[in-house]
């Protein structure tokens, strides 16, 4: 019976090919747009997620500066108020897992005939823990390297490639600002940061080496910023408060004085970025699904025309014993068939379009199974929903009136 009805629906569809095709086109475009848009959305989200994951989790950055000097307000990092002991004090807090002081600078690196200008940061081994950044080759420097300010370096992936090519840098000696440094290891690749910087274009040296030998700060033990990792996401707010109290205390600030440091919750910032891309991809999908709705209305329109056109046929069927549900099912099936076939083509168009977009534009796309499944379900619902009214109209025809219809 159901096979017979399917055949029936198919033959009704093929009786008016152009019209069926145009009706289907509505669904094809609708489903295609939904899949394409949600792939672009998912691609962007995946990229942001990757960047966030590469940043490390539950992260704070404590920046020096933000002080007022004679009415002139100086921005973060403008003054040197953070010290090494601030970092070690922060690390003592119960809500803090690790804190790594950082002294950044730039320097020219030379290895044999190759040279490369990059960011050189002095830090402690805690940095690699906070940023969740293991070495890919060799190892990172240790606390004893920091204590004795040895001339050792850990290279980012980009730097290693630029200086050494295919050669392994571990154990080799490079020159930073004309002083020799032994390469201990190469860090695993992190890729781009949220703002598009290449995170692998960097070199790490022990912070003491950077302070005393490389950049030679005039104040001993001064750091530019401290990267801090909290124990867990739930203690982030508490950690921020504790750090503020601690630093104010350490810096002996009066109760009415402004903070001479800035604490930034990087994880919250990243989450905001993630939320924004999520909202953006939802909006894309929502706009695309409007075309799905329009496609559904197209189906309803054509089904209504079809019912009117075939009133006499319906009359004949009813006269020879078709029950209401037979007629209802026949037209419902036809609407469903148009929307499902349209949806299948639309899925192909959407996937093809997504690949096309990623091939011709610098946009990353991720085709999610859920977008296919959801658009398929929605298309089916659209078929049933918009097919139901015309089908019921057909099923409710009075036999005698339907037969008389010219």
């Amino acid at each position: 019976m159901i096979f017979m009805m399917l055949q029936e629906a198919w033959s009704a569809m093929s009786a008016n090919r152009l019209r069926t095709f145009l009706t289907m086109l509505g669904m094809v475009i609708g489903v295609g747009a939904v899949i394409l848009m949600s792939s672009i959305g998912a691609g962007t989200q995946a990229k942001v997620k990757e960047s966030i994951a590469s940043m490390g989790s539950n992260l704070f950055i404590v920046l020096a500066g933000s002080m007022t000097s004679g009415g002139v307000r100086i921005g973060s990092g403008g003054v040197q108020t953070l010290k090494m002991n601030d970092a070690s004090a922060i690390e003592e807090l119960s809500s803090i897992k690790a804190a790594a002081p950082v002294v950044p600078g730039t320097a020219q690196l030379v290895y044999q005939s190759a040279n490369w200008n990059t960011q050189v940061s002095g830090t402690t081994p805690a940095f690699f823990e906070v940023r969740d950044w293991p070495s890919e080759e060799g190892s990172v420097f240790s606390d004893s390297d920091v204590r004795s300010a040895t001339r050792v370096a850990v290279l980012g992936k980009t730097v290693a490639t630029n200086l050494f090519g295919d050669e392994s840098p571990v154990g080799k000696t490079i020159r930073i600002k004309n002083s020799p440094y032994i390469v201990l290891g190469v860090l695993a690749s992190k890729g781009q940061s949220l703002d598009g910087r290449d995170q692998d274009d960097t070199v790490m040296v022990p912070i003491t080496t950077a302070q005393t030998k490389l950049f030679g700060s005039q104040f001993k033990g001064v750091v530019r910023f401290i990267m801090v990792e909290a124990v867990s996401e739930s203690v982030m707010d508490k950690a921020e408060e504790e750090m503020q109290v601690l630093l104010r205390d350490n810096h002996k600030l009066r109760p009415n004085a402004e903070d001479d440091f800035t604490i930034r919750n990087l994880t919250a910032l990243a989450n905001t970025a993630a939320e924004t891309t999520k909202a953006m991809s939802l909006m894309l999908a929502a706009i695309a699904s409007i075309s799905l709705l329009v496609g559904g209305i197209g189906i309803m329109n054509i089904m209504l025309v079809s019912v009117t056109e075939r009133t006499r046929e319906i009359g004949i069927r009813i006269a020879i014993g078709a029950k209401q549900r037979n007629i209802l099912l026949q037209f419902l099936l036809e609407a469903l068939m148009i929307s499902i076939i349209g949806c299948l083509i639309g899925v192909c168009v959407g996937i093809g379009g997504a690949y096309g977009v990623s091939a011709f534009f610098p946009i990353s796309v991720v085709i999610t199974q859920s977008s296919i499944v959801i658009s398929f379900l929605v298309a089916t619902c659209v078929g049933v929903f918009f097919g139901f009214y015309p089908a019921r109209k057909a099923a409710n025809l009075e036999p005698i009136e339907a037969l008389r219809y010219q």
Partner: protein
Amino acid sequence: MAEVIRIEALTKNYHTDAGEVCVLKGVDITIQSGEFVAIMGPSGSGKSTFMNILGCLDKATSGNYFLNETDTTTLNKDALASLRNHVIGFVFQGFNLLARKNLIDNVALPLVYAGIGAKERKVRALEVLKSVGLEAYATYLPNQISGGQQQRVAIARALINRPKLILADEPTGNLDTKTSQEIMDLFCELNDKEKITIVLVTHEPDIAEYSKRLINFVDGRIQHDGLTAHFQASHV
């Protein structure tokens, strides 16, 4: 002989812009199994309306209609559809075949709604097509055969579910004299051999002549109900 149709005090009103129009004004008829009844009457006498009510395509305003001893006035749409499918075979003036389907599928259509499988449908459709002499055209479309042949297909479709009763509404109205005779011979044969009760509406006296009993409608009432020969004699 069992009665197939019993109609008591049947009336039918239509609502029109001009007000209530009374088309049937109290009709009482009993038709026994195996009868061959012709219904005549001038245009507007109510004979077609009566026929539609007999075929369960239309509902009476008041009165009772027992088909096969079932009171049809109490039945819902689906039960009526089932009656049309199993008990009645309908033959229309305009054939009413489905243009997109070949003859086999047209003939087998009632069996689809009777819930019969594809194989059996085909076998039975070929069987009835053969009985009306059209098995050679089984895969033709309706517009590829003549009007007389189309009406035979329509009769085959009416026969396929082995109905007790065939209702024909001016079945020869669109056909020439010779083809009309062939169609009427077919009806006579069905009546004689298969003992199928036949009720047909016509306005041609020579078509009515094939019947044994004649009911003449005038202005929504039965004016004559008796042997066809008697009526023809009184109207010559």
